[in-house]
């Protein structure tokens, strides 16, 4: 009797799990040696929940149906369903990504600080803004970051630049974008801890066991990101990613050879049992034929050496060595092909605390004319004088090269400026854009505790666009913008290549923080004195009084 019951139970379970949503977990670690001796590493943990779709925002008033997850992170799933979020991207980065030497990052969101953006469908019961507030606070608690301060003063809706990377379900209302940046946010172990807790194997086994915070936060650039997107016909995909740029030359005192042990101070001892695939890919440097990768690999897609962690012998320590190289020669860094289509530099000029000049200089590295979109979502800490916009291309004034798509001016104490323009860049030239800016005067309570430091201003975002009929650039095939690139799992990389400028620091005039009562008292005294004396004269009559007595 017992065994019959057991068989029926097993078949029922098999059927339900076959029909129900099934989950997959993939791990990937890619290494890419960079031209200046550094090493770009990228961890990608992808969990797909197939056969589901995001919560319909029109049902927000009803009780949510219970969700059952095995490897999908429960905490994140709960947040997503609570606020009916279709697509979510969170980046927490530290450092400055050097596009000129490191090329395009694998994850495009490399703006310094915290960047959070989400696509949410409109709902009659709870507005998008209300859910955005709840989402920021929930994520700030989840990831131990101060995302709660991405309030109205930092939130914009740049729908043209931040397109959805997945599909937006057509049921329900129109989808809206909310985007906020906090450039002064720090990244530290407390952000990595909850990140690791979202993984099914945590940091105990698999590739995630390499994430050693003492090494990761010692790097020239590091950033962790969380991407949630909905792919039609498939389901919801959560991609947790950690990118960093290591400097082996600094650790080893001159040599750029690296290994997992030297970089992470750890090796992989066990593989994650629930991972469907777990791979390490090492980019094979094309120009140098003395690069040597250990252990021996048999799997390769032409560009990468692929190590299957699930089946490799443990402990696994992947290493790369340049034979006959005793010290890295920095001279090779200077001569090089441009690694990106455009190079951008943004500066804030002027030493006055009342006004300045914002200057952006964009160099087109291509031999053809390309266009790029330029987005500034500037908090009201810097206000633009658009009528002073000047455009020069190689010294010649060319106002026709900038066309402003939209400009939503800032409201003091409330809304940031959203400025979007399309720039046309002639081949192999530099476009200089500059405009006057004025610096506002904040209230006493609006200044941060360290007001003398100044405020960090969010990066500008540029998206280079090649015209659709441009022939593939035979000299630089890697810069071809027709995105035939796929990520490790066969999905095309759909995100346009956004480029982020570094953040700026603006120095605003501060009042004297020690003196609020003094100021109130002194101003009120002056006003009261004048008031009193004026009314004294107005309300009293003059009379003559005899003073001297007759002798």
């Amino acid at each position: 009797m017992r065994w019959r019951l057991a068989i029926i139970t097993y078949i029922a379970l098999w059927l339900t799990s076959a029909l129900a949503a099934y989950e997959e977990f993939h791990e990937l670690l890619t290494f890419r040696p960079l031209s200046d001796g550094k090493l770009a590493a990228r961890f990608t943990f992808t969990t797909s929940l197939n056969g589901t779709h995001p919560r319909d925002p029109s049902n927000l008033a009803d009780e949510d149906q219970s969700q059952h997850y095995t490897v999908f992170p429960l905490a994140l799933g709960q947040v997503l369903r609570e606020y009916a979020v279709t697509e979510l991207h969170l980046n927490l980065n530290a450092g400055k990504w050097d596009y000129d030497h490191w090329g395009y990052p694998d994850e495009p969101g490399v703006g310094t600080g915290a960047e959070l953006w989400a696509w949410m469908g409109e709902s009659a019961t709870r507005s998008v803004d209300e859910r955005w507030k709840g989402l920021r606070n929930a994520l700030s608690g989840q990831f131990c970051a101060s995302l709660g301060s991405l309030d109205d003063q930092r939130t914009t809706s740049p729908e043209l630049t931040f397109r959805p990377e997945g599909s937006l379900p057509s049921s329900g209302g129109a989808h809206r974008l909310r985007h906020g940046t906090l450039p002064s946010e720090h990244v530290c172990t407390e952000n990595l801890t909850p990140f690791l807790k979202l993984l099914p194997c945590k940091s105990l086994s698999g590739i995630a066991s390499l994430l050693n915070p003492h090494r990761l936060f010692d790097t020239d650039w590091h950033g962790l990101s969380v991407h949630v997107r909905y792919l039609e016909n498939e389901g919801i995909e959560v991609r947790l990613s950690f990118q960093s740029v290591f400097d082996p030359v600094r650790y080893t005192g001159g040599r750029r050879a690296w290994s997992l042990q030297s970089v992470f101070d750890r090796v992989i001892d066990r593989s994650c049992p629930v991972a469907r695939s777990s791979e390490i890919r090492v980019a094979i440097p094309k120009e140098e034929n003395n690069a040597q990768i250990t252990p021996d690999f048999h799997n390769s897609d032409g560009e990468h050496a692929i190590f299957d962690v699930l089946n490799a012998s443990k402990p696994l320590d992947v290493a790369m060595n340049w034979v006959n190289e005793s010290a890295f020669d920095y001279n090779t860094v200077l001569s090089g092909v441009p690694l990106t289509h455009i190079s951008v530099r943004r500066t804030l000029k002027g030493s006055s605390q009342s006004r300045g000049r914002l200057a952006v200089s964009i160099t087109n590295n291509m031999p053809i004319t390309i266009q790029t979109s330029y987005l500034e979502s500037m908090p009201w800490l810097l206000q633009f004088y658009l009528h002073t916009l000047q455009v020069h291309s190689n010294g010649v004034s060319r106002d026709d090269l900038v066309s402003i798509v939209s400009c939503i001016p800032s409201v003091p104490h409330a809304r940031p400026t959203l400025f979007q323009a399309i720039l046309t860049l002639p081949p192999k030239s530099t476009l200089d854009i500059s405009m006057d800016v004025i610096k506002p005067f904040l209230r006493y309570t609006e200044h941060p505790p360290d007001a003398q430091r100044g405020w960090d201003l969010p990066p500008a975002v540029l998206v280079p666009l090649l015209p659709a009929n441009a022939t593939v650039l035979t000299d630089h095939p890697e810069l071809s913008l027709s995105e035939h690139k796929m990520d490790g799992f066969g999905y095309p990389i759909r995100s346009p290549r956004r480029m982020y400028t570094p953040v700026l620091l603006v120095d605003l005039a501060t009042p004297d923080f020690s003196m609020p009562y003094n100021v109130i008292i002194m101003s009120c005294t002056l006003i009261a004195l004048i008031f009193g004396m004026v009314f004294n004269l107005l309300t009293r009559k003059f009379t003559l009084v005899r003073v001297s007595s007759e002798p």
Partner: protein
Amino acid sequence: MANALGMYRTVKRLGIPDSNIILMLADDAACNSRNKFPGCVYPAAARDLDLYGDNIEVDYRGYEVTVENFIRVLTGRMDSSVPRSKRLLSDDRSNVFVYMTGHGGNEFLKFQDNEEISAFDIADAFEQMWQKKRYNEIFFMIDTCQANTMYSKFYSPNILATGSSKLDENSYSYENDMDLGISVIDRFTHYVLRFMESVNKTSQATMQDLFDMYDPDKFASHAGVRSDLFNRPIDQTLITDFFGGVSQAEVLAPEEEFYYSSTPEGGHQQESESFTHVDSATTSGAVKSNNDEIHGYSDLLSVVQDLQREPPKRDTTGLFRTWVSSGLMFALVAWVSMRK
């Protein structure tokens, strides 16, 4: 930094989970670019123990550490959007341990260089907690200059308080780290942590033992204790009552084994794994969408093409309106000038 982190590690080691700890750090010392040892905070110059470690959750950091947020945490009066990890979810059977450290003085503690919290503020917050039944007993420890003044104003029951120095006394740091160029920990906290190293989850050490350890010569200040509001005798109050998360567990006789397939975690992993292996065989052949079209670009490219096709149109209705308005203005002026 090491003060608060040392207490955090002690409390975690003795069993309190992160969900029951609220850690507020105003400075980012561990990952600061000037920290020679990234990701590390050491409590001693010997650098043998890293307090930051691999597993830490800071609930309030940077500019979020304000007097207002601290009092909101204590009293529980928060906006509904504040997540659970940032709330003190205590009830009338919770023992709450509050540890504060920083720069302070006579009845105040400095927050963030521009704010202070006064002893009266904390006393009132504790009273609010008592009225709202948010604690059973509170243990309040503070390590600042003139720390004992901070607990002098409490008036709610069941509070045991201790401070590192009395009125007109400074609290001193323990030792300096010559590489980092800072002093790593304060004396009072250092000796308390050293005492705590001898305490484990099953320890029967009492609060009296802790207070007996206080030595004014070693501390270079007179640490104080206030127990008049506390209704239990201190020599019968265990350290783990406040520092440890020791829970009572009963072992029951095993019952009929039943397997539920929904949300298997941990031990049930084996079952779910076998099912997923079966499933993968059926779905590995599924075609993945190979859509070459760059989904993201289409809107941006169409904007560019629109701009190239036609020049940006000026706002004609606005121009019309302003012409009408100016015209009417001039008409009004002319009419008034014609009059008498």
